[in-house]
């Protein structure tokens, strides 16, 4: 046998051995339903960290999910909506006086008083922190007092900006205390602000007419409970930095040792020896002392996967589940090529919308102009071009097309160029200088040296991630409606300061809590953080920062304020429907498309599901990593 032949033979044998080895490395055997799962693996994704002090409000849903594995919230969500978690369902416990006074049971099993001001939750017995200490009502009280203290100006260095929903909405909480009527001392009483404590942006008058209805879902289901014995005033050990908000030791939490930072009560415990905080490569082991029993999935690992390599990682068995990017062109129907995988649909959520700043005057404050923009864009073509057909044109009512509260019979604003041009003519948006384009107000680029080419007409602002879409939309508006408009995608995206006439933004029509219609559109919206002051050199900005400016339809604003305090689901839904019809008529925003979120998973592991409205502090719900399914192995319960 020649040397060359020998080398070839050896190479072939090595190749075969590698193939056999690869086939044998599959960690997940097809298990019968109900059998515990030894390990699940997912893609790690770097970001703001995974401690409750850094992950909240993070743009990284994976990091936020990791945090929820270690830390529990009072209530939670399964496939059907809010559920009790740390609390005892009210019909099992809660012997307080609330029931006698006509209180009602909440969606997540607490009790709310008849006037909607007091929420009462009895903690489950036997809940322990990872270090074996019991989780008490004092821990819950400490957590929420800390949140309030931080919000009230005790901003602590080392935290990200308090931009997460739970920090915005903590404003609605007046006080939290251990219920003095409960002898066990394990019941927590939350008192919300009444109507007088909701100042409007436009003045001192009250906007909300009562306590805020989504409190349980968006605050109690999102704030991770942190241990008082680690972070509270009595934690003298290692508390070298007194002076944190609320007399705590939490002045620089993210630089504390991992055994303190990640000490929670959740179903999984971080293996700190293998944790890489910059890549978030991490391994979580089941909490053997968990109050709901040993979790169904014993170990969850997050491994490095290269950009755009999710599907390859699935095929090679590196991970057991992944999201499928909208730009991949893969739909739930075409996933057949991934034999053995199960698609999970996440609804129409990844939205791109054009928002108008109505405070900029003519023509942006004219609904005919905004309607013309809506009629003048071929949104079906955008769905095909930008999400490979996996999506739909956005709803004209301001909510996701997948939202359970979506109003029926909303106008669809299908492409109608004749109508669009007629509307522009009717309000006098015409070509007055003979350059072939309808004149629009000029708009500078602030201090930026690079301005888009053109005659200085209106600009459609966007962040760099939507640059191509912005260019396509602008091209069609210039060609079909002959509008003098240019695309502008500066980096950093300065539009966060409201310095735009028209902006193209992502993540507007989310499928979560419908009160977002008020917070995104109503001109009255304010919070303690954003009293509507114009304190930046770029004009006014409010909370949330990217929003419609100047939409002041009185009927809409009244309905918006009413629905936020309407505890009756039926009448609240009616108001929400009417609000959507008003938005559809006034068009303060044009939703271009909503992409369908899609996930694929290895079957026979756990019954993965997409949680409507997201989980924990992830309002966009961009994940199927709901700890509920890993703990119980079920979709509900």
């Amino acid at each position, binding site marked *: 046998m020649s040397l060359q032949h020998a080398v070839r033979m050896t190479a072939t044998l090595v190749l075969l051995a*590698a193939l056999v080895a690869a086939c044998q490395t599959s960690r997940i055997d097809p298990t019968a339903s109900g059998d515990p799962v030894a390990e699940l693996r997912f893609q790690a994704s770097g970001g703001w960290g995974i401690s409750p002090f850094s992950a909240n409000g993070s*743009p990284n849903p994976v990091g936020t999910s990791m945090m929820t594995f270690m830390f529990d919230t009072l209530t939670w969500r399964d496939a059907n909506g809010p559920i009790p978690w740390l609390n005892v369902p009210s019909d099992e416990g809660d012997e307080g006086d609330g029931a006698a006074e006509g209180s009602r049971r909440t969606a997540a099993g607490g009790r709310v008083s008849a006037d909607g001001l007091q929420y009462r939750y009895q903690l489950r017995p036997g809940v322990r922190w990872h270090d074996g200490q019991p989780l008490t009502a004092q821990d819950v009280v400490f957590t929420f007092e800390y949140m309030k203290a931080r919000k009230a100006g005790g*901003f602590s260095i080392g935290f990200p*900006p308090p931009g997460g929903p739970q920090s915005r909405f903590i404003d609605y909480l007046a006080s939290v205390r251990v219920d003095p009527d409960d002898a066990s001392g394990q019941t927590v009483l939350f008192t919300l602000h009444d109507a007088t404590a909701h100042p409007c942006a436009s003045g001192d008058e009250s906007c909300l007419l009562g306590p805020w209805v989504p409190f349980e879902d968006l605050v109690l289901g999102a704030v991770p409970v942190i241990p008082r014995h680690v972070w509270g005033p009595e934690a003298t050990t290692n508390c070298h930095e007194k002076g944190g908000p609320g007399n705590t030791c939490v002045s620089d939490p*993210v*630089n504390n040792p991992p055994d303190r930072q990640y000490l929670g009560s959740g179903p999984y415990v971080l293996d700190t020896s293998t944790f890489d905080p910059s890549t978030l490569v991490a391994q979580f082991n089941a909490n053997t002392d968990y109050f709901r029993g040993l979790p169904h999935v014993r170990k969850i690992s997050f491994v490095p*996967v*290269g950009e755009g390599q999710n599907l390859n990682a699935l095929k090679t068995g590196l991970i057991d589940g992944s999201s499928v990017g909208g730009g991949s062109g893969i739909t739930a129907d075409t996933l057949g090529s991934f034999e053995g995988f199960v698609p999970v649909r996440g609804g129409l959520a990844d939205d791109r919308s054009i928002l108008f700043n109505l405070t900029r005057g003519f023509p942006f404050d004219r609904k005919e102009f905004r309607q013309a923009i809506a009629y003048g864009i071929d949104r079906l073509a955008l769905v095909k071009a930008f999400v490979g057909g996996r999506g739909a044109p956005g709803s004209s009512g301001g909510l996701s097309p997948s939202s359970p509260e979506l109003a029926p019979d909303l106008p669809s604003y299908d492409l109608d160029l004749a109508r669009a041009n007629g509307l522009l003519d009717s309000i006098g948006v015409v070509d007055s200088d003979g350059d072939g384009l309808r004149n629009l107000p000029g708009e500078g680029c602030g201090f930026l040296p690079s301005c888009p080419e053109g005659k200085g007409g209106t600009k459609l602002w966007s962040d760099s991630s939507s640059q191509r879409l912005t260019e396509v939309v602008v091209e069609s508006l210039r060609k079909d409606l002959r509008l003098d408009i240019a695309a502008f995608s500066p980096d950093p995206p300065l539009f966060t300061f409201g310095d735009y006439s028209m902006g193209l933004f992502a993540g507007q029509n989310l499928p979560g809590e419908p009160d977002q219609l008020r917070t995104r559109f109503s001109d009255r919206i304010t919070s303690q953080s*954003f009293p509507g002051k114009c304190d930046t050199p770029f004009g006014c900005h409010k909370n949330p920062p990217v929003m419609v400016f100047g939409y002041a339809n009185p009927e809409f604003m009244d309905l918006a304020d009413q629905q936020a305090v309407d505890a009756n689901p039926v009448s609240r839904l009616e108001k929400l429907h009417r609000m959507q019809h008003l938005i559809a008529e006034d068009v303060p925003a044009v939703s271009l498309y909503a992409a369908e979120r899609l996930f694929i998973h290895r079957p026979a592991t756990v019954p993965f599901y997409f949680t409507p409205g997201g989980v924990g502090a992830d309002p966009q719900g961009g994940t199927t990593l709901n700890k509920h399914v890993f703990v119980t192995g079920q979709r509900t319960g």
Partner: protein
Amino acid sequence: MSVTEDHGLLGGGVDAPPADPPATAVPHRRRRGTRVVAGILLRHGVLLFALVTLIFLLPRLVPLDTVDINAGGGGITPEEKAQLRRHYGLDKPLVEQYGLYLGRLVRGDLGQSSSMHRPVRTMLGQRLPWTLLISGLALVLASAVSYMAGVAVAWRRGTRRDRLLTGTMATLGVIPEYATGFVLLVVFAVLVPIFPLSGARTPFTDYSSVFAEIADVASHLALPVAALTIALMSGKFLLMRNSMIAVLGQDYMVAARAKGLPERRMKYRHASRNAVLPFLTVLGFEIGFVVGGSLFVESIFAYPGVAALLGDAFALRDYPLIEGGFLLLSGSVLVANMVVELVYARLDPRARS
């Protein structure tokens, strides 16, 4: 031994070496060499200072500071902004900020990441070895292969092997490293899975021995290094080949051939040593490109290097981390260029003069 002295081996032909310098000329030449080295060090010192100043000034020249960018859109009160500005020292006069910045740099303090809340120095320190490993190895491999191949085909220029290799290299040169990386990944990690798909090591593994760990790291290294090496090889190969061809036409090479010197000696001792000077110059500049290329490669292979970290920093608008990363990378390029200049001065007497 200098290049000119090498030519002296040819025995007094064209470019014959000068006569041995008188004894008094040796200290003079040494002094001149010291001055040249000092000049190079001084020039790069000034450049480093300018670089540090630029990195300090750039983010402060735009009206939005790091607090505005990172916190302005997230719902933060003016009081909280002021507190953050105090924390970052942005409330102080610019000159005082600069002084503090230099002081921190001297102490090796690059500040705190605004997105990950960890010291920038620690983060870069954890990632740098991986980037050095991947880019250093790729640079060495690409240099070695392109040098050897360039010399070899130039020596036999016009042959079929020359045409084939030159054509292949020219083709590879226009393929971006991420495309090469993607092809390698699909072929050798998915279709024929002989190498791992991602990462720098198998996560959560307890190695039985140091050798097992080295083997694991090496297997993870193979594809990203191959992608980067292929991307780096082409330009250097073509440069080396052309430079070598130019040298081979020199009179002293004709003379060397006429003297009957062994081919290996002519090729590597006389021709390639003279042809390598432009190659070295490019090598110095290329360190910056290697880091740029490793950004894509690290991203595709989820390799935990500095470039991937900087990619995350850009996405999260983490200005302290971006500044620290830039300082590290541009400082590395500066140091590499300085080393190349020093080597160049050593090899080429014209540079010394």
